[in-house]
């Protein structure tokens, strides 16, 4: 029991850090939450339900994720905004010594420079994590968005 609660707490902290670092626009540190061998994907529920593989964003390895962040910093032009994640309770779906799967729902609000907020996206995180010397790290983060109709554009990660 003790172990389960400890595990739950640790994965929850990982997800809390994940959301907080995006919201604080500290994407370089956000990258550190991912294992060197990791995958990041945002996919619309519409495609998942039809068994269609197309994502909105797909980084098959950590270098592609680093490239995304670099491109946001240096190349892309997008709506100036801040993010605010609201996370649901976390659910551990399976666990072993060397891995853990969990899921949680989120609502992501975006606000512009004049303080106007809108609900940007809702959906679910499907998390796979593994332990490391620095604590749990993400091996796979699959973001299934119910909000498949992206408002304006999707630049910063969800």
């Amino acid at each position: 029991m003790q172990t389960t609660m400890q595990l739950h707490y640790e994965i929850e902290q990982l997800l809390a850090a994940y959301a907080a670092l995006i919201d604080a626009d500290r994407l370089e540190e956000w990258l550190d939450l991912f294992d060197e061998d990791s995958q990041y994907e945002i996919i619309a529920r519409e495609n998942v339900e039809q068994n269609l593989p197309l994502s909105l964003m797909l980084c098959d390895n950590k270098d592609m994720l680093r490239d995304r962040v670099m491109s946001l910093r240096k190349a892309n032009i997008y709506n100036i905004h801040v993010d605010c994640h609201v996370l649901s309770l976390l659910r551990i779906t399976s666990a072993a010594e060397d891995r853990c799967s969990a899921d949680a729902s989120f609502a992501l609000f975006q606000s512009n420079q004049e303080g106007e907020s809108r609900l940007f996206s809702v959906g679910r995180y499907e998390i796979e994590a593994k332990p490391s010397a620095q604590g749990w790290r993400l091996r796979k983060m699959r973001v299934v968005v119910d909000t498949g109709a992206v408002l304006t554009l999707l630049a910063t990660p969800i």
Partner: protein
Amino acid sequence: MNETSEALSRYHFPAADCSRIPYGMYRDAEVYELEQERIFRGKVWNYLALEAEIPNPGDFRTIAVGDTPVIVNRARDGNLHAFVNRCAHRGSIVQRQLHGNARGHICCYHQWSYNLEGELVSIPFRRGVKGVGGLDADFDPKCHSLRRLKVESLNGVIFGSFADDVEPLEEFLAPPFVAQLKRLFHAPVKVLGYQRQRIFGNWKLYSDNVRDPNHGGLLHMFQITFGIARLSSVGGATLDAEGKHNMSWTAQGKPVEESKDSGYGDTARGDMDIKLRDPSLLEYRKEFPDDRSLTIASIFPNCTFQQIGNTLAVRQFRTRSADEFEVVSTFYGYEHDDAAMTKHRLQCANLAGPAGLVSMEDGEAVELVHRAIVRDKQSHSVVEFGGKGAVKDQENLVTDVPIRGFWLHYCKLMGIQPGAEA
């Protein structure tokens, strides 16, 4: 039909070649209403869907033409049909599902039922109960079909028209665009998935955007930096005789000599010293007989067929109001693709769509314009890159002539005479 309406008389196009476009045309709700009749339901072919999405009898998808809800389906005999998704009884949406397979379409409100040809085939309690109630004996179901669109398909790409007198599809598309569709759909395709984007701006700002090769090499820094297309690339724009359609294209691997003091000199763009750690999504695996690695073919009025490297998709624009539209993109590959090619296409899809490394800027650009043109509706945008006057094919990318082609045809359908005295 094209009597000048009050809404249109508010705006003046001072130049006969549409090199000036009054901002009000992008913000006026009454202009938007007229567009539904004269553009989307006018003498045009609208892109509806791909045959690959409805391969079997009974398969359907619900889409929109302009803002009109439409069902596209395949009948028992294999023929394609499209009709307005609005019940002939009291106007309910008939087919509520996004897609599926059905024997017909039954309206949930009072259970009127339509076959796959859109004909009204059954009405519950038509004769009432024991001869009391129900419909009068002279009610003729044949007069209450779903409103049908004309449908034609080219290499598996389905188009529909509200106009009975529209020219045949291939004539409307004109040779360069028939050729481009045959090039893209040279083999059976398989759908890889959908992406949707809601943009809070006028739909014509988007159709301008896809007819503006000039912005590609200035706004889309990712594509400039990583050599997907620079304004100095070998490329151009191909139009039909009227200029209503446009294909912007870039050829692979043949940059035109670019000197240090060339075009990019005045910008912060064009020569950033950054590298991708994983450049695999930039790789173009040649798959067409020509060397065009980027083609954006926009067919008047509602679609764009894109090839960004090996990312293939068709984008359908669905209007929602003067101030909002949706872009629904259907990504596809070929049935003969092996697993590695499919994986490559899915990776390259990172370049396109609402989160596209190359394309995300367009949503922002459209909204920036839409916000700023809220006032001064008689002021004009300036469309002069590539020169004024006649609309014709363009030999490089520093041009926005295709925008004028769109507007000239738009004005013709709307009943506007550009350049005429106000």
